[in-house]
């Protein structure tokens, strides 16, 4: 029996990029490529369905995406985010899985989600600035500039911004008199003169330094995130927020259990994935890590704080070969029979 030569059964695809960057994968320019390169195996499809179900039903939830090095965490996150944030049809047209497309393209088109997605790789600091809250604040600011620049002036995220907002909108006459006294003593000018000279950000920083707005800056994680959520959903008309953190392992390695930094990380993640969703904030959080989920976040039987999504683990390890095949070669028409002959 004659068998067809291999080069007539398969065509080798261009060498795939094996180290994707989340920031690049979720740009509008790269979204279609990211999505069309993604191969949905049954287990991966189930993970997408689990996340999409929560989003379609506007039910906030945390997910812990765990996998070994090279299992495709970043590509998983990038594809998921692209399908949630880009409303042009081309992105959904690029999906190579008919079931995902038919079940969710229309349903998700009705949901407007504000994304905050970033990788922690390279964000280490040896100083006090190594704070997850500070990074979340910075990244929310960056996301506003990238995805909703029209909200930049309206949404207050950091303490100085909240302090300036407090002075303009909430402070009583007596509190304003205290502020005037502080600026006269420290800068020999009125608050308004200082703001005109130095800008709103510096003005806010000085207010924070004065300690006068203390207690009004929503200093607790829950208050701060709730306030940000309220502003973004109300002013921006969003149905919810999506927080995605990639490469969390590098952060876990620096913050060992028992330290203050570890406790801060746990509290922030619990606030986003459990506390706020249980108070009807539609916040979906995905944390991707090679490492295990901190025990406190696993729920301990009281309800799931983070639902674990294991990529290509245990019985699904064989998916890896299927994905490599998909990324590396194209099958010609009738290839299945020829492959059987081989």
């Amino acid at each position, binding site marked *: 029996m004659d068998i067809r030569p291999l080069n007539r059964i398969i065509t080798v695809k261009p060498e795939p990029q094996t180290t994707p*960057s989340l920031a690049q994968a979720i740009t509008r320019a790269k979204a279609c490529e990211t999505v069309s390169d993604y191969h949905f195996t049954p287990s991966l499809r189930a993970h997408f369905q689990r996340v999409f179900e929560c989003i379609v039903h506007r039910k906030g939830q945390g997910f812990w995406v765990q996998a070994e090095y090279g299992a495709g965490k970043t590509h998983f996150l990038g594809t998921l985010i692209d399908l949630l944030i880009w409303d042009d049809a081309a992105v959904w047209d690029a999906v190579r899985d008919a079931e995902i497309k038919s079940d969710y393209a229309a349903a998700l088109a009705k949901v407007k989600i504000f994304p905050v997605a970033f990788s922690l790789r390279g964000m*280490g600091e040896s100083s006090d600035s190594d704070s997850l809250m500070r990074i979340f604040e910075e990244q929310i600011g960056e996301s506003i500039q990238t995805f909703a620049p029209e909200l930049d002036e309206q949404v207050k995220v950091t303490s100085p911004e909240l302090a300036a907002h407090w002075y303009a909108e909430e402070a009583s006459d007596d509190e304003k008199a205290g502020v005037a006294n502080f600026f006269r003593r420290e800068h020999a000018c009125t608050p308004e003169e200082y703001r005109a000279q130095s800008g709103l950000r510096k003005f806010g920083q000085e207010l924070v330094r004065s300690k006068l707005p203390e207690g009004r800056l929503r200093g607790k994680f829950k208050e701060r995130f709730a306030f940000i959520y309220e502003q973004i959903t109300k002013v921006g008309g969003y149905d919810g927020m999506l927080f995605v953190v990639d490469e969390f392992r*590098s952060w876990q390695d*620096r913050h060992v259990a028992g330290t203050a930094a570890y406790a801060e990380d746990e509290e922030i993640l619990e606030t986003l994935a459990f506390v706020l969703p249980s108070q009807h904030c539609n916040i979906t959080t995905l944390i991707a890590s090679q490492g295990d989920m901190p025990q406190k976040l696993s729920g301990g039987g009281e309800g799931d704080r983070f639902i674990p999504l294991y990529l290509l683990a245990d019985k699904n390890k064989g998916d890896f070969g299927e994905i490599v095949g998909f990324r590396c070669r194209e099958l010609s028409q009738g290839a299945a029979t020829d492959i059987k002959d081989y």
Partner: protein
Amino acid sequence: MKTAADLAALTRQKTWDKDVVLWVGSEHALLHTLGQLSYTVLDLLDLFDEDCLPMDHEETQAHLRRGLRRHLQSLQAGSERRTVLIVKSIGLLARYHAGVREFYEWFCGDFAMVVLLLDGLLEERPWPEEVTCDTDSLLKYFDTPGVVKQVFGEKG
């Protein structure tokens, strides 16, 4: 700290894996180690306009990150053109807490790696009595887990 030979071995790999590394030593020795590999140099000071410098710490940090991102996005690397980016004046990244995230996000990949050049650490300088020079602080900053992947040194 790994040796120049270790760095040479890394550069010979077929593909890289989001490699942002630190080189402690002279530029001359680094170029010698890279051999025939294609490279490009970025001096972070060139991201600033001397006539229009940012006002304060935060503005400088934002300017540095923005300028760096724009520059990295403009660089081309691919399977046809493996490239090493050598970065100079890296003290600015530490001084303004700008970190190295932009390199991971916008440049590094299978065919592109970054070498941060930390030059002059090994020189003995006659500082005035009232000045203390902490020669380890930059090394500590970049060698924190999660910042650079590996540290290589001219002197091993």
